[in-house]
């Protein structure tokens, strides 16, 4: 066992990034994410890394992508309004397949919204916020330790799949100060280097990725946000563009089992499953425990990967439970995915709240009361 620390979720994120080999951070101040920047501003220089505060969030992610092309593992962190500004470059990173990690600590929206009260209103934006079809991975931790672990996992996925990875958690998780047993070491994924000879930065079988060369390391190549062929040169030939899109789509779908993770608790005999993530999942756990005491066969289904959405896992659960209660701090975002994945095999009811206050166990229990005991 490694060091034991009392850490904010945001501090755990910064430490996870360092452990994963992140050596570049560019960001812009915004509550409730700023402790990530502040922690890394202090720790990165001693680790041989670079911290830079940019002029806005657009520039922050741009600088990360430039540094990633220079061979560094790079991260930025923000909250709602800044996340909106980053969407252009999330799409650029997805299209050009540049690895990077983006942390979005969710606060109430829309617009300036509720600084700094918790929310979970950016679930669909994290998936679809940038224009055009594109792959994305979104992870959702629910404790300071899990923030650490998932930050490490985010870097591993980013390098493995050459994709932007979004770490999505709410303000409560960000500012919850918890005991964290830091692991002695974490798995660090190194970026594979292309071999000598002609280099095609996008030449890979369907569902796979080519190694990403580093600028200045000997391979001269082109990176563009235009639709491109496997050399990286602009392309408009429909067959070439279709192949690019298909491979981008497939590279996460083919490997979804490496990416998609869910936690289930008391689900074996459950008739009603609460689906929740982030801080709400912790309220849901208490609600499930209390429901069991009342004789209700309740269980918890907690996706820790939000995108790709755990369709198969929800579908399998839908064959066993008669009702899903989806509890989330928004007006209905994960519930859409649960309904889609359940395909009518189980009823889906919401326990939704978007007023800047976390959902309580009592509210979830009240939702239980409204669910018919049998279908």
């Amino acid at each position, binding site marked *: 066992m490694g060091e034991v620390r009392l850490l904010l979720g945001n501090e755990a994120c910064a430490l996870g990034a360092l452990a994963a080999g992140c050596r*570049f951070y*560019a960001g812009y101040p915004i509550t409730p994410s700023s402790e990530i920047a502040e922690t890394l501003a202090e720790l990165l*220089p*001693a680790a041989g890394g*670079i*911290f*830079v505060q*940019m*002029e*806005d969030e*657009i*520039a*922050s992610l*741009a*600088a*990360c*992508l*430039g*540094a*990633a*092309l*220079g*061979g*560094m593992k*790079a991260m930025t962190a923000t909250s709602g309004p800044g996340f909106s500004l980053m969407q*252009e*470059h999330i799409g*650029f990173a997805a299209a050009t397949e540049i690895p990077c990690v983006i942390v979005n600590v969710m606060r109430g929206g829309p617009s300036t919204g509720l600084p700094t009260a918790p929310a979970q209103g950016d679930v669909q934006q994290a998936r679809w916020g940038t224009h055009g079809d594109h792959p994305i991975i979104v992870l959702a931790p629910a404790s300071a330790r899990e923030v650490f672990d998932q930050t490490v996992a985010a870097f591993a996925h980013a390098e493995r799949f050459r994709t932007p990875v979004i770490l999505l958690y709410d303000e409560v998780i960000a500012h919850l100060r918890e005991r964290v047993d830091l692991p002695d070491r974490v798995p660090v994924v190194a970026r594979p280097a292309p071999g000598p000879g002609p280099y095609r930065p996008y030449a890979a079988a369907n569902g796979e990725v080519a190694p990403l060369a*580093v*600028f*200045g*390391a*000997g*391979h*001269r*190549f*082109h*990176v*563009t*946000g*235009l639709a491109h062929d496997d050399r990286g*040169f*602009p392309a408009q030939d429909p067959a070439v563009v279709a192949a690019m899109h298909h491979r981008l789509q497939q590279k996460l779908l083919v490997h979804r089992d490496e990416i998609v993770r869910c936690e289930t608790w008391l689900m074996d005999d459950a008739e009603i499953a609460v689906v929740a993530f982030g801080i709400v999942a912790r309220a849901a756990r208490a609600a499930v425990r209390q429901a069991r005491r009342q004789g209700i066969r309740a269980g918890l289904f907690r996706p820790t990967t939000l995108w790709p959405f755990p369709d198969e896992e929800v579908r399998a659960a839908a064959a066993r439970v008669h009702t899903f209660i989806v509890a989330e701090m928004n007006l209905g975002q994960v519930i859409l995915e649960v309904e889609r994945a359940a395909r009518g095999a189980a009823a889906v009811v919401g326990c939704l709240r978007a007023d800047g206050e976390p959902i309580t166990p009592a509210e979830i229990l009240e939702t239980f009361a409204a669910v018919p005991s049998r279908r």
Partner: protein
Amino acid sequence: METRHYLRSDMMPHLLCPGCGHGIVLQSLLRAIASLELDRDRVAVVAGIGCSSRLAGYVDFCSLHATHGRAPAFATGLKLARPELTVIVITGDGDGLAIGGNHLIHAARRNIGLFCLLFNNAIYGMTGGQVAPTTPLGRRGTTAPFGSVEPPFDACRLMTAAGATFVARGISYEPGPLQALCEAGLRHEGFAFLEVISDCPEFYGRYNRLGRGPEMIQAQKRHTATVGPLLARKAVLGPTALPEVPADLRTGVLHREVRPEFARVIRAGTGTGAP
């Protein structure tokens, strides 16, 4: 001086219009790179969106055709990660001074070691001739059919005020002096800014009845005047000695100062600028 080997032949034909001055400017840049004998594997070109930014795809270096206006921010990250690279930013007047103005002034303020080449043709060419923040008052574009009502930016004064430590202006009419300015900018330690007045006969020239390419670049010659010691073969005159030439039409090296380069400062880890 042979520069053809710097071009990606399989990217040809290029998309520039007949009479466009951008090719002359690129040639001057490539001659400067050849003249300085830069290791081509250690040159990176970072560009935004627009006609000039497309040049990044045609040159056989590491090249990043980024998003509209954001090239200085991408280049800042790259330079911080790989300070040994010569990082060239290619931008246009719309890309650099409108949508990307914020990134440009902050790159200048930091004095990050980039050579930024801004192609100013006073119009949005790629999108079909809309007015730009450099379109002179009264000149026409598709979005100013009765003439522009907005005063234009003087990019060099803007960059000087923002903190750029090397600021120069050239014209596509003079590829020789332009090459010299590129060499000086590439050698400069810190943020070097070179505005090049280029011509867009297809839109700006046509909408404003300024003639084709040859007439337009000859007009550059008539309307500009060179200052500063770099182009000493012409009249050496300080800016104040040219009252009849507006500031935004003066060419040559307009400003130079010595300040610590940002990548060195940040890598020193002290934040004081001490190496």
